[in-house]
């Protein structure tokens, strides 16, 4: 299983080491970092909550789709709980024979992680106010649409 939800800080060096293979010529990784601001407000910390019994099957489905479409090996790790500015919220690693597949697969995976993985982000601001983040994608909830986040409109 190449998916993990973890409350401890994500270690990209250790995760990268697990991807090494003498048959792979290309490695692409993506990290989402906690920024110090969002939409004009100063962020003090984030809090991610997750649906732990559902997330693994969704992640497994996303990874299977990426492997099938792009012939890659790939893994996803997502942090949960309280995060500070600069922390890694999510890590995606992809290897393949050639670079084109790694970029396409890595982008596919992170887009689908944001759209389909049952995780929710609350921002806590420096003025102590807080807010659950509204996503940028639309709120339509038909699972049939969720495979192609960039192509459907609501």
């Amino acid at each position, binding site marked *: 299983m190449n998916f993990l939800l973890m409350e401890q800080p994500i270690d990209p060096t250790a995760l990268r080491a697990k991807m090494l293979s003498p048959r792979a010529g290309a490695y692409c990784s993506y990290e*989402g970092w906690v920024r110090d601001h969002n939409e004009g407000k100063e962020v003090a910390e984030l809090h*991610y*909550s*997750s*649906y732990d*019994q*559902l997330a693994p*099957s*969704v992640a497994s489905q996303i990874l299977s789709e990426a492997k099938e479409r792009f012939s890659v090996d790939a893994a996803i790790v*997502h942090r949960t709980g309280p995060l500070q500015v600069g922390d890694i*919220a*999510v890590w995606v690693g992809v290897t393949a024979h050639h670079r084109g597949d790694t970029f396409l697969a890595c982008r596919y995976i*992170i887009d689908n*992680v*944001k*759209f*389909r*993985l*049952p*995780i*929710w*982000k*609350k921002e806590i601001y420096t003025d102590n106010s807080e807010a*659950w*983040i*509204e*996503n940028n*994608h*639309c*709120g*339509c*909830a038909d*699972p049939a649409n969720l495979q192609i986040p960039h192509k459907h409109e609501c």
Partner: protein
Amino acid sequence: MLVKVLYFAQLADFAGKSEEQIEVTEKSPASLYADLRATYNFPHEFKQLQVAINHELSAHETPLEEGDEIAFLPPMTGG
């Protein structure tokens, strides 16, 4: 019949709890959500939410069974 409802994110905040047992008379998730929304003032329309039954994403019209665990999921915002 008795079902267990799981709450996440905003819904957990509005409900003030992460889960509860509910006695339902109708099998429709839409009907159950309408009742819960009236009780807790949930901000979402039913069609904005995904439905998970027994930890699997499920169609909105899936009939509920005795002992099911159901969750109404706000749009996801991980990553």
